[in-house]
């Protein structure tokens, strides 16, 4: 029953996507377009979402009721698996993850259509362009909907065809093997993959904007502003998904770090890099009308890299912790990537002349050239990570043997690039557009440079001798100073214009110019992360020892005392652990229980570390070996990880900043004399754009999807 319902839902979603595509393109691109066809496209998007929701719920019910007649449940479910992990095993294997992916995609499509549902209420809906098509300002919405529909055709098609999770098994087995042990080890599994998926799938919307912009030949102000906002929403999810993944890896994998440059970790980082590049270069287009083709390239590349990452996980072409078992889906994905790439290249080639902008960069010391350097670094970074990830394949293709490219390589290349980006974060925002005079530059950077140098010297005096950490600390101080100066400048201006208090002025900055000041908050998060990486890298140390009854081992400020070794039988695994008492500076921190989990289906035992976190440092214990005869001793590796908590905090700050950036604004605004002046000046500018109505007030934001 559930199987039939689920499959019917997938077919329904496929139908919805087909209608989205046909009606959307017809409404936006052909002469037959009218209000009616656009409405059909919109409703089809709602319908696809409804169908996918039904499909996902059917799968959830099947999982939770252990209906092993459903193929997917028989493969990932088991009666013994705790309910929470059963519920989230929706994304623990290939077919279920595609179902989840499809649901989010349908959700984005419906949300996009919903935010623009009022567009057709105005008088423009009935006016016609000279060639008989609908008014130019109205074409974008149905075409974007249609492009999302085409992506839906692919993913819903996968569900109906080659990776149908709803297949029936007859006779139904009595029990299943349960999900991959690694994926039922930590509650973060309920958070990190969905975040990542919301980020990945969200990049479909900017891609749809790019393709629609190319088809229509219009990439002007409103198009750009909306495309950028949707990108920020998806980008924020992706950021938190990546950092959540680091956190998961730290808490589960037991090697004491958060980022291993695993191929699939890299694959999630690549679209993040190009999306970040787009978020910055979009501002150059917004202000100067330049880099249009470049921006389209970045938006499309981001989507292609999302597909690439998905392909890597699902084709089995690269061995990774994250790899799903390989199946027929690899070649299908490959074909789709090739299709998207070719169509995009043809479209860009076709429109290249029309998009060519006459703008020029006038001076090396200007905001726009800072953005160009930023893009250069980010895209160079993307290329390097891509090369490193695929290099084993290149070598195999050329020479026939296998090599590895692992963390030492990536650390070596990523550190200088990352540092250059960090510095640039302090330079770019403080530079004016077009041209900066020497005087202005001096004024903008004098204090910050001084503080940066002072911080570097202080780090040296405090005993840090490695080059990179000193430079990171200096750069962080430099960037933080320029950000504080930017806020101070804004607050001063606000106080003068609106006569607000300091606190009120700060609130104003966020509520009235959230995009800019939210962006600075994101930058603060990046600085925090850079510092956390640098500090934990410099001061991290570890010690390993075999402890017997009552024996103690000191690790820096910490000390651990062996209590015992124990074993418990859980539903689907045997857990062997060691209990130790932890102390910091002689003060008890309580018990810690590093464990090993042994699953019947997995040859390697899976270690679960025990972690005591604090704002200054973490104590991280891994059980390496134990005495299986009497339980009288255990070998424990203890790692002291200073400041690592700030990695997660930095990630949250980045998420918060993004939220401020895209928070709907413009409601209930009081006007002072100064603002009236602003409004008048602004009005002169607005009149050039193809604006339809002010929708900022009632536009729900993509960030709301997951909350």
């Amino acid at each position, binding site marked *: 029953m559930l199987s039939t319902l689920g499959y019917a839902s997938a077919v329904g979603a496929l139908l919805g996507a087909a209608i989205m595509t046909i009606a959307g393109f017809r409404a936006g691109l052909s002469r037959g377009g009218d209000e009616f066809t656009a409405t059909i496209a919109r409703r089809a998007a709602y319908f696809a979402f409804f169908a996918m929701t039904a499909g996902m719920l059917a799968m959830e019910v099947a999982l939770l009721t252990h209906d092993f007649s459903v193929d997917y449940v028989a493969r990932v479910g088991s009666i013994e698996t705790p309910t929470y992990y059963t519920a989230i095993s929706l994304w623990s294997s290939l077919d279920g993850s595609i179902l989840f992916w499809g649901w989010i995609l349908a959700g984005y499509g419906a949300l996009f259509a919903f935010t623009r549902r009022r567009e057709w209420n105005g008088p423009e809906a009935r006016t016609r362009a000279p060639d008989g098509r609908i008014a130019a300002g109205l074409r974008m919405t149905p075409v974007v909907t249609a492009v999302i529909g085409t992506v839906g055709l692919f993913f819903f098609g996968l569900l109906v065809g080659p990776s149908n999770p709803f297949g029936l098994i007859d006779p139904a087995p009595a029990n299943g093997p349960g999900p991959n042990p690694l994926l039922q080890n930590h509650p973060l599994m309920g958070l990190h993959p969905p975040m990542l998926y919301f980020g990945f799938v969200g990049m479909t919307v900017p891609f749809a904007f790019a393709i629609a912009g190319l088809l229509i030949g219009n990439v002007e102000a409103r198009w750009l502003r909306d495309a950028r906002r949707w990108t920020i929403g998806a980008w924020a999810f992706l950021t938190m998904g990546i950092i959540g993944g680091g956190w998961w890896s730290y808490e589960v994998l037991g090697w004491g770090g958060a980022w291993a440059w695993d191929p699939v970790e890299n694959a999630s980082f690549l679209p993040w890099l190009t999306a970040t590049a787009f978020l910055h270069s979009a501002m150059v287009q917004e202000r100067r009308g330049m*880099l249009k*083709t*470049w921006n389209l*390239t970045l938006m499309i*590349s981001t989507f*292609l890299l999302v597909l*690439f990452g998905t*392909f890597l996980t699902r*084709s*089995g*072409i*690269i*061995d990774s912790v994250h790899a799903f078992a390989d199946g027929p889906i*690899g*070649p299908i994905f*490959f074909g789709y*990537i*090739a299709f998207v*790439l070719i169509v995009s*290249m043809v479209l860009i080639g076709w429109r*290249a002349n029309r998009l060519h902008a006459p703008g020029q960069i006038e001076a090396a010391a200007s905001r726009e050239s800072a953005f*160009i350097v930023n*893009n*250069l670094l980010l895209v160079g970074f993307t*290329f390097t990570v*891509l090369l490193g990830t*695929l290099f084993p*394949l*290149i070598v*195999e*293709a050329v020479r*026939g*043997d*296998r090599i590895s490219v692992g963390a030492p390589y990536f650390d070596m290349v990523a550190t200088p690039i990352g540092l250059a980006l960090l510095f640039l974060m302090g330079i770019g925002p403080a530079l004016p557009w077009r041209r900066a005079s020497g005087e202005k530059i001096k004024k903008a950077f004098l204090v910050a440079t001084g503080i940066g140098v002072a911080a570097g010297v202080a780090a040296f005096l405090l005993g840090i001798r490695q080059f990179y950490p000193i430079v990171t600390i200096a750069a962080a101080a430099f960037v933080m100073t320029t950000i504080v100066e930017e806020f101070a400048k804004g607050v001063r201006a606000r106080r003068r214009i609106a006569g607000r208090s300091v606190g009120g002025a700060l609130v104003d900055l966020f509520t009235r110019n959230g995009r800019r000041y939210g962006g600075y908050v994101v930058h603060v998060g990046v600085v925090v992360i850079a510092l956390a990486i640098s500090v934990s890298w410099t001061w991290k140390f570890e010690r390993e020892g075999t402890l017997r009854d009552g024996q103690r081992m000191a690790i820096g400020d910490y000390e651990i005392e062996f209590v015992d070794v124990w074993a418990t039988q859980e539903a689907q695994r045997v857990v062997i652990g060691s209990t130790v008492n932890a102390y910091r500076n002689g003060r008890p921190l309580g018990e810690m229980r590093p464990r090993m989990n042994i699953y019947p289906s997995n*040859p390697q035992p899976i270690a679960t570390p025990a972690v005591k976190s604090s704002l200054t440092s973490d104590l991280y214990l891994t059980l390496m070996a134990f005495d299986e005869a009497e339980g009288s001793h255990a070998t424990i590796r203890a790692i002291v990880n200073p400041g690592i908590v700030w990695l997660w905090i930095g990630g949250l700050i980045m998420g918060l900043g993004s939220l401020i950036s895209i928070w709907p604004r413009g409601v209930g605004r009081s006007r002072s004399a100064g603002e009236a002046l602003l409004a008048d000046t602004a009005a002169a500018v607005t009149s050039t754009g193809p604006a339809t109505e002010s929708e900022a007030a009632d536009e729900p934001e993509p960030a709301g999807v997951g909350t």
Partner: protein
Amino acid sequence: MNRVLRWLVPLVAIAVLGLLGFGLTRSPQFLPSALIEQPAPEFQLARLSEPSDSIALAELRGRVVVLNYWASWCFPCIQEHPYLELLDETYDHEDVQLIGMLYQDTPENGRAFMRQYGGEWPTLVDPMSETANPDGVYGPPETFIVSPDGVIAYKQLGPLSPRTFPIVKGKIDSLLALRDDAPQPLETAPPETGS
């Protein structure tokens, strides 16, 4: 940003696409050993069934030696066991010697495994992986084919199976044929072809 970059991105994209296409044609589990065409590391190890007795690789010169690394905790080793038996029966003559190498396991567990699944060929105990490490073994089952002059001719990573058995057999046959073509022919059964 300008003409060069405009071409660079699509070029890189197409190169990546080509690479992915290539990637689809092979398996990430495939890992050629660095030891192919290298002399096999010598060993002298105790037998599992009679610990007082030992076998050295050097004693087996002139014969094709098949070294099969296995462990009782290794699930695929159970699946491949019938193929090892088949191999042992196929070359039931002096020219091919199958030797099991117990990897990261206790002799007790090894003996229990052999009792349960059978098999007449000798297994050697390599308690500290002193042979396995120079042999580059990391995930049993792994099967090495050592030529009559003590050179590693082939390495099969993963179990013998309907797919891999003919490959291994073909390799052994070609080594036998090669040896028989050598100046001093020995009187042996003709190498079988096909399977």
